[in-house]
């Protein structure tokens, strides 16, 4: 699956529309799930999905160097596109620019393979966190909540949230690098 997606993205980078169509067919339900979860509205999620694939078409040539698995790369674009839409930030260039910069400096393929085999660590590392902190990380990642959103949701001052979540992220980072 992953090898096949990599091959398709490689062909899309060369302007192969059939590969683009096949890549869409293979991944659209997952990426739509991402957009729908974050936007919680079918029409907006459909727009976000189209925007996501337009970025994929334009940036496929930058995939090879970024060291992410194809699905992670695609989901990152879908997630950022949906969050931008959610926040009504009309600066698509920023997300484009992020996709671009990600490709600038990535790990070697060997490092990427190692990293992928260890990806499951996040679950264990989240378990090591205070449950409230782990929940906040999930809300941010899966639902696109910002510090400001979390502050409202938890009825806690933003700076307080920021302080404990930054500490939680440092623990998480430390755990994942073990």
């Amino acid at each position, binding site marked *: 699956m992953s090898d096949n997606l990599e091959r398709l993205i490689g062909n899309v980078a060369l302007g192969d*529309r059939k590969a683009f169509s096949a890549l869409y067919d293979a991944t659209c339900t997952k990426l739509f*799930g991402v957009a729908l979860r974050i936007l919680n509205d079918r029409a907006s999620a*459909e727009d976000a999905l189209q925007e996501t694939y337009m970025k994929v078409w334009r940036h496929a040539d930058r995939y090879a160097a970024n060291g*992410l698995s194809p699905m992670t790369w695609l989901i990152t674009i879908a997630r950022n596109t949906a969050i931008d839409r959610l926040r009504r930030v009309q600066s698509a260039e920023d997300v484009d620019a992020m996709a671009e910069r990600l490709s600038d*400096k990535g790990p070697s393929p060997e490092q990427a393979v190692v990293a992928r085999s260890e990806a*499951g660590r996040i679950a264990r590392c989240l378990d090591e966190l205070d449950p409230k902190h782990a929940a906040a*990380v999930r809300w941010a990642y899966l639902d696109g909540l*910002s510090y400001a959103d979390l502050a409202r949701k938890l009825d806690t001052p933003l700076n307080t949230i920021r302080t404990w979540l*930054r500490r939680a*992220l440092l623990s998480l980072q430390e755990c994942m690098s073990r």
Partner: protein
Amino acid sequence: MSAETHDQYNAGEYVLRLLDPAEEAAFERAMRADPSLQSEVATWLRGLEHLNISFSEESVRRSVKTQLMERLFQERSVRAAFWSRLWVWRGITLTALILAAVIGYRSFPGPATPPGSAVFISEIVAEDESLRLLAAYDPSVGGLRITRTAGSAPPGRVLELWAIVGDAAPVSLGLLPSSAKTTLPLPEAFRRATGLILAVSEEPPGGSPTGAPTGAVLAIGEAVDL
């Protein structure tokens, strides 16, 4: 961007999208100057990727893909190809006259033809002439009589004929069989040569899945009155 600012936000916050727009912009400026931050962002994305299993798969309406493909490819594929092939037109009028004899539409019923249903013809040719078709509108059957005189569909693909008028989206007229000659019904809206463009694209077996050309546009031709 000072080292102090780097410390102000970490890559995890950025990847999680916790920051407000101004802070995101500041982090991105810092990231541009500091390759180690770019690595950290990639590391966070890989670290968090296991959470992706929590995103469920959701079925997408077919029209979303159709619209996407139109937004991405329609203009560039058909129209740009069309305008870049202006030179083909120059030979068309003369060719059309020569073809008159070949296809024999002179024998189409003249006086019985309903008003507004003039005979017209189009030579649909690839830029390198590897594919060439002649299409003649026959008012007596309300269809295009098509003769393929050169080329064929790529292996595993089929040829699909499209009608284009002005800025409207291409409309499929149907698939071309492997035989050299066929007649395809022509919708009322396209029964005038004025502004009518015919194009042939290569598509998966069964034709374009989207309702718009998805494969390469192989050949294109303008309709001309006889």
